[in-house]
C-alpha cells in the first residue's frame, strides 16, 4: 500500500515535471575538458610585463610607460582599466616571483551564477564575458568572485561598467590567441584547449620534478580555464586561501533548488489553515 507521504512525494514530483520545473532544477551542464585555456608556466615568466602592455593596448587604455629596459610598472593591481598585471610576490621561498593575474575563467563561475540579469556569461568556447548593456550595476559579481577579479568603473555616474579580462573572446572568434599570450616572449603562456593543456602540465610535472612542484586550477572551485604550473605552493603565489574544490554556484544552488517545494508546502499549509479556521462558513473563535 502506498503511504501518505509517498503519495504526496509522487504527486509533487509529477506536478513539477508537468510544469517543466524539473528542467529548471537540473544542474547546469558543463563540459569538463572543452573550451579554451591557457597554461601559465611561472618558471618561464621573466616579469617583462609585455602581456600587461598588450592587454592595455587591446582594451584601448593605452600601453604601459616605457622603462630603461622593457616596460615600466602599470597600476600594480587589477582595476577597471588594468585587466591583467604582473604581481611580484615577495616574502615567499622565491623572492620577487612574477605571477600574472587576470580572470581565471572558472568552468563554473560564481560571477555568472550570481548575476541577476545574465550580464555575465560563460561561453561554450571558454571565456567568461560581460555584456555591458544588460548590467544593472548591483556589483554582486565583484563580491562573489573567489579570486576578486571583476572591478568597477566607480567614477562613471550614469553607466558604470564592470571591468574584467574577457579572454579576448573577439580575437578567439577570429582564431587568434589572446593578446597577452601573443605578446609573451618566453613561452610562459600557452594557449590551447584546457583538457590538452592540463595533460601537458601533468606531463611536465612528472618528467621534470626538479623544475615543477604544483599545478593550480585543475580542481579549485570546480576547475579554471587558466592553469598555473610552478615550483611554489599556490598559497605563496597569492591565490586565496580556504576555497573549496566544489564549484561555488553549487553552494547557492543547494538552497535555490529547494524553493519550489517551499512555495508548494507553505502555500498548501496556509490554505489548509485558512479552510480550517473558517470552516462551516463562520469564523472560529
Amino acid at each position, binding site marked *: 500500500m502506498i503511504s501518505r507521504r509517498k503519495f504526496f512525494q509522487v504527486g509533487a514530483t509529477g506536478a513539477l515535471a508537468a510544469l517543466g520545473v524539473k528542467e529548471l532544477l537540473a544542474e547546469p551542464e558543463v563540459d569538463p575538458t572543452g573550451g579554451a585555456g591557457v597554461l601559465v608556466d611561472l618558471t618561464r615568466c621573466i616579469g617583462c610585463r609585455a602581456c600587461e602592455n598588450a592587454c592595455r593596448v587591446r582594451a584601448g587604455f593605452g600601453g604601459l610607460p616605457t622603462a630603461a629596459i622593457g616596460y615600466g610598472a602599470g597600476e600594480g593591481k587589477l582595476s577597471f582599466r588594468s585587466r591583467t598585471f604582473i604581481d611580484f610576490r615577495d616574502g615567499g621561498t622565491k623572492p620577487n616571483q612574477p605571477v600574472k593575474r587576470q580572470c581565471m575563467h572558472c568552468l563554473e563561475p560564481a560571477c555568472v551564477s550570481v548575476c541577476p540579469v545574465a550580464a555575465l556569461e560563460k561561453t561554450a568556447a571558454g571565456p567568461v564575458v560581460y555584456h555591458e548593456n544588460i548590467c*544593472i*550595476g548591483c556589483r554582486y559579481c565583484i563580491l562573489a568572485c573567489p579570486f576578486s577579479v571583476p572591478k568597477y568603473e*566607480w*567614477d562613471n555616474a550614469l553607466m558604470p561598467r564592470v571591468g574584467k579580462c574577457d579572454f579576448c573572446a573577439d580575437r578567439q572568434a577570429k582564431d587568434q590567441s589572446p593578446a597577452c599570450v601573443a605578446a609573451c616572449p618566453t613561452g610562459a603562456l600557452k594557449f590551447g584547449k584546457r583538457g590538452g593543456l592540463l595533460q601537458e602540465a601533468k606531463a611536465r610535472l612528472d618528467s621534470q620534478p626538479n623544475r615543477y612542484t604544483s599545478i593550480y586550477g585543475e580542481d579549485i572551485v570546480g576547475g579554471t580555464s587558466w592553469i598555473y604550473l610552478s615550483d611554489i605552493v599556490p598559497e605563496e603565489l597569492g591565490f586565496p586561501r580556504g576555497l573549496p574544490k566544489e564549484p561555488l554556484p553549487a553552494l547557492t544552488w543547494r538552497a535555490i533548488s529547494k524553493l519550489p517545494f517551499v512555495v508548494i508546502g507553505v502555500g498548501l499549509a496556509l490554505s489548509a489553515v485558512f479552510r480550517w479556521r473558517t470552516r462551516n462558513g463562520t469564523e472560529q473563535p
Partner: protein
Amino acid sequence: MNEINWILALFRIVGVLVMISAAVCACWFLSGRQPPKHLSGGFGWLLLIVLWGLGGYALTSRYALGLGAVTNLSDQFPWGIWKALVLCGIAFAAGGFLTACMVYIFRIRTFYPILRPVVLAAYLSYMLSASGALLVDLGRYHQIWRPIFYWQHHSVLFEVSWCVMLYTGVLSVEFAPILLDRFGWTRTSHFVHAITVPFVICGVVLSTLHQSSLGSLFLIVPNKLLPLWYTPLLPILFFISALISGFAMAIFVSALTFWIFHQPLEPRVLASLAKGMTPLLLLYLFLRVADLTARNAWVYMFLYPVQGVSFTVEMLLLLLPLFVVLKTQWSGRRRWAFAAAIPVVVGVILNRLNVAWIGLLPLTGSHYFPSWIEITVVLNLASFGVVIFGLAARYLPLFEHPNISGHRPVDATGGVRVIVPLKASGHV
C-alpha cells in the same frame, strides 16, 4: 570644466532647497497645519530640515558624481551599508507578513487592532529599504526594471528582485483598505477584500522565499565571510531571525504608535506577540550555538577582536530579552514586552550588518566605513518612513479595525460596531 562645476553647484542647491521645502511641508502637516507650539516641537522641525537638507546635498551628489565619488566603496568592498540597509529593512518589514498571516489566515482576533499600523510600517520599511535603497545603490539605478525581462534563475538576487516586485504588490493590496476607507470607496473596498486572502497567502510564501534568500546571497562567499556568520544554514537562520524580528517589530510599532497617538491597546496583544517570539528565539539561539560548535568556529571570536565583540553583542541582544519573555508576569505587562522587543529589533539589524559588512572585513582585507553621504542617505530613507507613517496616522483611518470577516467589523473587546468613513464622521 568651470561650467560643469557651476552646473553641479546649481543642481545641489536645487536639491537642498527642494528637500528643505519638503521637510517644512512635512513638519507643517505633522503638527496639524500650524507652527510648532513647544520648544521640543521646534527642535523636531529643525532636525528634519537639517537632515533633509543634507539629504538633498547627498542625493544630488550621488546622482551627479557616481558611487566612487560619494561612497567609501571599493573593488575590495563592493557592497556597503546601502546594501546592508536592504537586508535590515526587509527583516524589519517581516512584521507585516506575520501580522497579516495571523489576522487573515489564522484569524486570531487579538491582533485585529494592530493590523493596519503594522502593515503600513512594513510597507514603508519595505519600499524604502528594498526599492529606495536600491535606487541609490545600483550603479545603473535606471535599469532596475531589467530583472523583469532578463531572467537568470540560478541567481539568488534574481529571485530576490522578483520577490521584491511581487511582494510590493501584495503589500499594496494589504494596505489599500486604509486608503479606500479614507475616501469611502466601498465597492472597490469590497473587491480588494475579496482578493485579500489569496494575496496574503502569496505574501507569506514570497516572504518565506526572500527572507531566507537574503541569507542565501552570502552562501557564495565561503572564503570572504567570517565563519562566525558563514554557514550553509544561512537561509534558515535568516528566515527564523526574520520571524523573530517580525514579532519584535509588531510589538515595537504597535506599542509606540498606540502610545504616541493616544489609542487604547489591550495588554494581551503585546503579551501574545512576546509569547510567539519566545520559542523562535530559543530555536534560533540553539541553532546558532549548535552550528558554531559543529563547525568549530568559536575560535574566530578571539582571532578577530572587533568581529568577536560585534558577534557577542549580537548574541546578547537576542539572549537578554528571553529573560523577560520567559517570565509571564513580566511579559504580560506592556512596558516589559516593549522593553524586550527593542533589543531583538536591534539584534537582528546588527546580525544583518555583521553578515553584510563587519563579518566581511577581515578576510577581504578591507577597512570599509561608510562615508557621511552614505550615512545621511540611510538616515534620510529612515526618516521618510517615520514622516510618512506619522502623516498616515494623522490623516488616514489607521486605528480603525479592519473588516476581516466581510460581515460587520468587530473590535478587540468583541463588541460590534460600524465603521463610518472618516469623511462622513467629520473627523478630519
